[in-house]
């Protein structure tokens, strides 16, 4: 929400200006998640043996990279009030396509470009069904989740393709100089800049929030609702395909079942990062913190020999708690009237 204050073109609401600046910056959902991330990271470095070493950062970043990448377009889609559940299947399909085409003798670069185009086409299929046919995105993308995964497994069966050029597989894992920063982080940072500017500093981005708050109001204000959604679904497919290529190279293995279930991790991180599933609310920095929080927690708990079931329980509980807290606070706020007897302007009622 603080981002909207940077532009004078946006209508000023009580919500933006009824509190001092420090409160508007610090008492937000995003700040809470960032704070939590810092606390967890500090506590983990102090108390979990082995977490404090620099190599943790490398492994952690490589592990969460596909989630970080896909979370960017997912944030935009969810702010419009839609959802894309098919991303993990697109990751799988792009991975398989890269593998099959490389095996068929095409240069890796060509195979990767074909996989990216296929990802964009997958996204366009989702977008077409949602915007032109007018179906709910939840139903559409559950369908394409199965469809794209089926195509991926069908193309390759239960085998794996593992023969990729060393140059590319090394590149996916390469660290910058002698440091522990993986090179692929810069790919993410480039995309981060693109998506942050798109969401927070362009009319297109404000259209995204407007659609999430009220589709009809956005439409009558001149926002191209359907076109915006279409673009977002294509972007989502494209980035998912990119994540699929990275995934393939990182593990040196193209399989039909690559990244199964990744969509839930992405959506969990996005929701934890403060994006409302009903649309209209959320910010990129919160989502990044959400992804990293889940990553740091999982990494620290694994280092402490906690089983994966318990890690899932803790992540799940954190997610539920964050959504419940958000809804509860929103409910409290709607019961209170703003000074002057006017209702406070609210973005959304629930997280």
């Amino acid at each position, binding site marked *: 929400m603080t981002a909207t204050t940077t532009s004078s073109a946006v209508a000023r609401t009580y919500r933006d200006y009824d509190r001092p600046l420090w409160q508007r910056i610090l008492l937000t959902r995003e700040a809470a998640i960032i704070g*939590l991330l810092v606390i*967890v990271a500090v*506590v983990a470095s102090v108390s979990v043996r082995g977490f404090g070493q620099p190599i943790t950062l490398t492994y952690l970043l490589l592990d969460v990279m596909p989630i970080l990448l896909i979370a960017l377009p997912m944030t935009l889609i969810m702010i419009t009030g839609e959802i894309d559940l098919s991303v993990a299947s697109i990751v799988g399909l792009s991975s398989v396509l890269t593998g099959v085409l490389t095996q068929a003798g095409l240069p890796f670069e060509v195979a990767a470009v074909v996989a990216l185009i296929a990802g964009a086409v997958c996204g366009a299929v989702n977008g077409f069904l949602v915007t032109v046919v007018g179906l709910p995105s939840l139903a559409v993308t559950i369908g394409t989740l199965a469809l794209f995964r089926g195509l991926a497994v069908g193309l390759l069966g239960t085998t794996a393709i593992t023969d990729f050029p060393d140059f590319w597989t090394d590149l996916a894992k390469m660290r910058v100089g002698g440091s522990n920063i993986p090179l692929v982080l810069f790919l993410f940072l480039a995309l981060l800049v693109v998506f942050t500017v798109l969401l927070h500093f362009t009319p297109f981005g404000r259209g995204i929030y407007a659609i999430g708050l009220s589709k009809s109001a956005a439409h009558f204000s001149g926002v191209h609702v359907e076109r915006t959604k279409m673009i977002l679904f294509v972007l989502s497919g494209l980035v998912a395909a990119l994540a699929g290529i990275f995934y393939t190279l990182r593990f040196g*293995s193209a*399989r039909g079942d690559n990244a*199964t279930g990744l969509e839930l991790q992405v959506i969990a991180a996005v929701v934890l990062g403060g994006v409302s599933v009903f649309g209209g609310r959320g910010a990129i920095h919160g989502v990044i913190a959400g992804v990293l929080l889940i990553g740091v*927690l999982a990494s620290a708990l694994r280092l402490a020999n906690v089983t994966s079931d318990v890690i899932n329980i803790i992540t799940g509980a954190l997610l539920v708690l964050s959504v419940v807290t958000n809804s509860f606070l929103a409910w409290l706020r709607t019961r209170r009237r703003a000074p002057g007897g006017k209702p406070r302007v609210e973005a959304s009622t629930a997280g």
Partner: protein
Amino acid sequence: MFEHKRRAGALTALAVGVALLATGCAVDSGSEGGSDGGSGDSANLAITFLPKNLGNPYFDTSSTGAKEAIDEFGGTFAEVGPAEATPDAQVSYINTLTQQGVGAIAVSANDPEAICDALNEARDANVKVVTFDSDTNADCRDVFINQADAEGIAKVQVDLVADQIGGAGEIAILSASANATNQNAWIEMMEEYLASDYPDITLVETVYGDDDDQTSFDKTAALLQTHPELKGIISPTTVGISAAARYLSTSDYKGKVALTGLGTPNQMREYVEDGTVTAFALWNPADLGYLAAYASKALIEGDITGAEGDSFEAGKLGDYEVGADGVVLLGDPFEFNADNIGDFDF
């Protein structure tokens, strides 16, 4: 405003609470895991088993065997693993074990290539790597504990069926799919072994149930119709043998046509108990875990390096020698029958 601050404070308190709760769990088990991992001064006998996934009865059995072995030689047993059998999840765990600096990782690979780099990073950090049940590429691990070789698997099934039908008569094979690599190799060896050792037994037909329960069931029915003189069926696949047993147990052929092959005790228990099946074969996962644990110990203590011809001692199982490509063979497959099936749960 005042009220608002109070709520904000409550939110912050709640967030900190969650953080402390979550990391609190980490602190407790962290100190435990830490002292375990760092204990050994001369030889770090902290051995962690990383199965394909947790909650899988097969790997629960192998871990039981591993724990028994590790308790015998005074090491530290741990088991970690993903909930889903995916290679990427295993990579995270291998990275974690590298950071913890365990003595050895015993892993059943979800993908021969995908976990390779992670395993090699672990080996660079002086962690020994043993694969069991499912191997990686040979250059990513020190030793592979092979549950059974093709020859042993082929031989035990033919011996079992010959024993059950009295060494003479018609038999048939119910296999997986027509291009299943393992099954085809075994069937070829079975044919050779039949020709050389059991000239009175005729293999009349090999049918393929595609590792599908219903198809295998139907193929069994068809087989018995086409060959009224059939005395025995070998099904070298766990899906096939249980489907065939289900058909036989409800038909007139029950007890008249012998059935054997590769199966798991939990699938076959009711058919062994009702007399449809006398005996079938598979390896014993507990022994597999037990041997993997002793191989890890031998690697950690420097008794073996994984080179061909190295030999080590493995408790109750006796002495083992490392074969070509760092492969250690567990031994002949294990026969399950009415007397011992009650001891197994996988």
